[in-house]
């Protein structure tokens, strides 16, 4: 390794770095490259992984002498990517190498670069611990260093199932605020099982959780009360209707009382609010009384048959 050629003012550009590595490793070794967020990433073919790391360190023009980081990315169906970050103390360049593991999701494997960078040793152990990627040529991945020794499964894989969520799924919704067509926020009470994970098992569990935690019926003690009140009001107004045919004046009073109850039912605001609200309620009361009277005239004949008018007058 030589620090003679690599200097901060002579650092290679990303294009030159790629060209150099293609030249040293062969065209097939470098699968692709991209500069994202100011970081230069080179995709390396799996077979050339170890050789690429060695070249990056030993090539005088590159001199990536500082091993920074190594981790993996779950690429879902495509398997796993292993990513390592290298830094050159002489040129100040940072380089990201990335490779796709062989073996798909079932048995991902990757060559170990712990021979080249000793710091990669524990990084690879951690990556194995979290993703279950076997690093070939590593001096010893076990025992697990981040999870407990008898831990089962690979927790950072996307299909790893969190046991706690099996009992109680994530209680939130995916989007905190959803908008309808007009751009208004849809108020939605988050329900258990609304935000299942990406895999089939998650969806099944979320469905089961929904079944096990049904939405409570809107009929509460209050709701029952409202219904009762409505019935009372109906009765009262019916009796009022009976009277309209008999005595106009008494009917007015009965109507007013009946629609008082009805107004209560329609909303507590008629009671609670101040004068303006009361005026509105008065207006509505009158309308309701009109409607009832018309209905009452239709039913007047039946009510006469019942002959209970005097009693009901007392009730009303």
């Amino acid at each position: 390794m030589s620090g003679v050629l690599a200097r901060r003012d002579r650092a290679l550009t990303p294009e030159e770095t790629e060209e150099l590595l293609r030249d040293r490793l062969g065209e097939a070794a470098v699968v692709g490259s991209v500069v994202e967020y100011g970081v230069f990433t080179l995709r390396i073919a799996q077979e050339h992984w170890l050789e690429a790391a060695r070249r990056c360190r030993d090539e005088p023009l590159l001199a990536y002498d500082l091993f920074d980081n190594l981790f993996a990315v779950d690429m879902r169906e495509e398997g796993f990517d292993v990513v390592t970050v290298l830094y050159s103390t002489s040129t100040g360049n940072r380089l990201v190498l990335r490779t796709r593991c062989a073996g798909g999701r079932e048995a991902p494997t990757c060559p170990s670069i712990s021979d080249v960078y000793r710091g990669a040793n524990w990084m690879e152990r951690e990556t194995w611990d979290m993703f279950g990627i076997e690093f070939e040529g590593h001096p010893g991945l076990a025992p697990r260093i981040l999870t407990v020794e008898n831990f089962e499964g690979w927790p950072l894989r996307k299909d790893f199932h969190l046991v706690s969520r099996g009992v109680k799924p994530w209680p939130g919704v995916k989007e905190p605020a959803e908008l309808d067509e007009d751009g208004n926020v849809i108020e939605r009470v988050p329900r258990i099982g609304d935000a299942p994970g990406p895999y089939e098992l998650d969806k099944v569990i979320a469905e089961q959780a929904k079944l096990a935690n049904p939405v409570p019926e809107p009929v509460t003690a209050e709701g029952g009360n409202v219904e009762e009140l409505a019935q009372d009001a109906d009765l009262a107004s019916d009796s009022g209707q009976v009277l309209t045919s008999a005595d106009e004046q008494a009917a007015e009073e009965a109507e007013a009382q009946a629609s008082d109850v009805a107004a209560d039912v329609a909303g507590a605001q008629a009671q609670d609010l101040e004068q303006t609200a009361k005026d509105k309620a008065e207006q509505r009361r009158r309308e309701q009384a009109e409607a009832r009277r018309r209905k009452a005239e239709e039913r007047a004949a039946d009510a006469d048959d019942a002959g209970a008018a005097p009693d009901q007058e007392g009730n009303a």
Partner: protein
Amino acid sequence: MGVMDQIELPTPIKYVFNWGRKYSLWCFNFGLACCAIEFIAASAARHDFIRHGVIPFAHGPRQADLLVVSGTLTDKMAPAVKRLYEQMPEPKYVISFGSCANCGGPYWDSYSVTKGVDQVIPVDVYVPGCPPRPEALLESIMRLQDLIQGESLKERMERRRRDPITLAAAGVPERESTT
């Protein structure tokens, strides 16, 4: 402890004895995450729990009476907590400080976090919050002192022998409002 946990002390002696115990709690801080910072704040000049008779940063668990577990307990760490707790001499008290130590807190569904320190060791006082303010720790210390003042060591030790993990029905006495 000798005979202290064998015989029921006469009430006046018990009163003085417990009074002495409650104002000399050597505290062993098991700081595991962010909550530990609040513990340190409570021990520093502004809140200063030495004035309550709690002496922070015991030299080790063998010199401590009170264990404050503040922070996120992971499954990997749990054996260490249990081991250090077992090294403490009786009578020993535990405060679980923060949501993480109480029940796993924000990490309730994590693969690695123990869902509460009370799964490993018995807890006397729980302090809710993420993180709780130092005042909450002071409150919990005063509650613990009330508990110590009112308890009978003999009963406590009998309960401990029967059921080493839960402090069944130990119960912290209700404090009168301090306003």
